[in-house]
């Protein structure tokens, strides 16, 4: 198990390294001098000169790359062009909001989706099964920001069941949760159906397998057979998907934050793009990408923990 973790960890590090280098390359591939690109056309010549000197932009590329990594390693993501604050400070201030949103959305989707899929598999072709099938197919691919807009329109503005903006009062958990409900639904709705379908398909397959017949032949109670023997295996694909899903959720969270005017990395990034605040743009993308890579790594490890067969070789799928 440890060797597996080590192997996967190294691979993740490599990918992250390449991704970061790609970002670095993008800055330098743009026409014009890097200082303008990084600081944007609005920056004054004095600021550009200072940046050039500080970042050693007149130095050979490799040296710059080295310094880039050096800075990253020490947690220095640069400085905000406008407010002059440390980018890392700004980003990590906003990140928890996004994290809370994504966690709630995934948690809710999983809590609803897994039992739904399980029931649909056990009571195959029943009414519940058919409804779930059609609804999930329909809802899965609708862009989450459209869902967010409709929710905002009806439930927040028209009927006023939930607040339309913001994250809620500081320190007031209940209020903050109220503010989280609609964005979380917008994010997680498609996933409920997706997870349900995945679990259903997986369960149907697993229930047909010989070892389930063995478990039944030994008189194990149906509940044990389904929950501990079948679902345990059927859940595996879901774990992988969830790890990858966080990435798409981060994108969806961006829209949810903008539609519901919530603080978070998405909102931060969007504003930074619009105002050409490049250090913040790069910093946000870096942090979210790192988070995403970490999530995929964790999901692979959890997967291997649940399914001992995966620990054997270093096969990448």
């Amino acid at each position, binding site marked *: 198990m440890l060797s597996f973790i080590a192997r996967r960890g190294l691979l993740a590090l490599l990918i992250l390294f390449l991704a970061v280098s790609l970002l670095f390359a993008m800055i330098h591939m743009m026409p014009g001098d890097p200082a303008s690109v990084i600081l944007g056309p609005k920056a004054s010549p004095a600021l550009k000169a200072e940046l050039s000197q500080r970042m050693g932009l007149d130095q050979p590329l490799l040296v710059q790359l080295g310094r880039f990594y050096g800075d990253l390693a020490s947690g220095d993501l640069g400085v905000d062009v406008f407010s002059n604050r440390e980018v890392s400070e700004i980003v990590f201030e906003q990140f928890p909001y996004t994290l809370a949103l994504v966690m709630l959305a995934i948690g809710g989707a999983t809590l609803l989706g897994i039992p739904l899929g399980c029931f649909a598999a056990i009571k195959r072709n029943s009414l519940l099964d058919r409804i779930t099938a059609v609804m999930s197919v329909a809802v899965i691919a609708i862009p989450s920001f459209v869902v967010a807009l409709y929710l905002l329109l009806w439930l927040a503005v028209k009927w006023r069941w939930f607040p339309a903006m913001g994250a809620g009062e500081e320190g007031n958990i209940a209020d903050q949760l109220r503010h989280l409900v609609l964005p979380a639904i917008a994010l997680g709705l498609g996933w409920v159906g997706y997870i349900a379908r995945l679990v259903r398909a997986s369960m149907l397959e697993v229930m047909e397998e*010989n070892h389930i*017949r063995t*478990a039944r032949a*030994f008189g194990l109670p149906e509940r044990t057979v389904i929950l*501990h*023997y079948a679902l345990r295996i059927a859940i595996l694909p879901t774990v992988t998907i969830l790890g990858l899903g966080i990435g798409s959720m981060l994108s969806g969270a961006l829209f949810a934050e903008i539609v519901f005017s919530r603080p978070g990395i998405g909102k931060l990034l969007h504003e930074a793009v619009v105002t050409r605040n490049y250090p913040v743009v790069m910093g946000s993308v870096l942090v979210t990408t790192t988070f995403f890579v970490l999530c995929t790594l964790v999901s692979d490890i959890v997967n291997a923990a649940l399914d001992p*067969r995966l620990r054997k070789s270093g096969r990448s799928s």
Partner: protein
Amino acid sequence: MATPVLDIRDLSVDYQTDRGVLHALRHINLQIEAGRIVGIVGESGCGKSTLISTIIRLLAPNATIAAGAVHFKGRNLLDLDPDGMRALRGNEISMVFQDPMTSLNPVLSIGRQMTDIQYRDASSKAEKRARAIRLLERVGLPDPAEQLRRYPHHLSGGMRQRVAIAMALMTQPALLIADEPTTALDATLEVQIIERLKQLQRDFGCAILFISHHLGVIAELCDEVVVMYAGELVESGSTRDVFLSPRHPYTRKLLECDPARIQKASRNLPVIAGKLPDLVDLPRGCVFRERCDLAVDVCTREQPRLDNGDHRAACHVSGR
């Protein structure tokens, strides 16, 4: 005379398929006395699997029991409610399945699976583990305590099958059903496992219903044997009687074709000409008629039934 452990009377099972009703089992009569080993011989498609599934009542949803009774220790299993049946499974009736590669749960350790099936027992986890270890020793697995920690994919086919047998014998069942347990193993392993099984049966005293198409193994292990063909029971008796003086033409052909019996070296393996009848659209008369070279007129009109005595055959032309 004591009540047989298993007493199947006139059992008929159908499957509902797209093409129509498939008559998988017809008028099966089978008795197993306590402590006896009974073998079932027959080629693929003869209904062995359906028979076993019916006994433990784990049939496919499209199966219907058209007629008959399955008495276990005097009670008709077909009348039992699901909970009653479940109480017997893995308790008084145990099974060993054919394919060791897929019959154990891949994500749970051997120990976990062996303690789970003891769920009815109120003893502590440590006691359950200890019992599992003792049984693994009895089936001849080296280092049993270590095996409990491992997962099925760490074990070879032969070892997995031993685990399966250990699991089946854990509760000292009255009846052990073994569905071709050695078919997937190579010959040397097969011999070892059969020897072990014989020993265990002597020690535990359970009745065994042993399915196989390997005649040599049946001859070695079983006291009695029944021959099945296309859903019917065509011959039954002691292993000695049936194998040495087969009465049914199918049994005779089967024995002739057994590779172990080939006297002369030849290029061609002997086969039984023809193929299995369509179980949806059964021919009138004897089900083996088309492949039988002794068939006469009555064979096309009347279906033969098992006659009486210790060595029975369902055939119009078999003498005594």
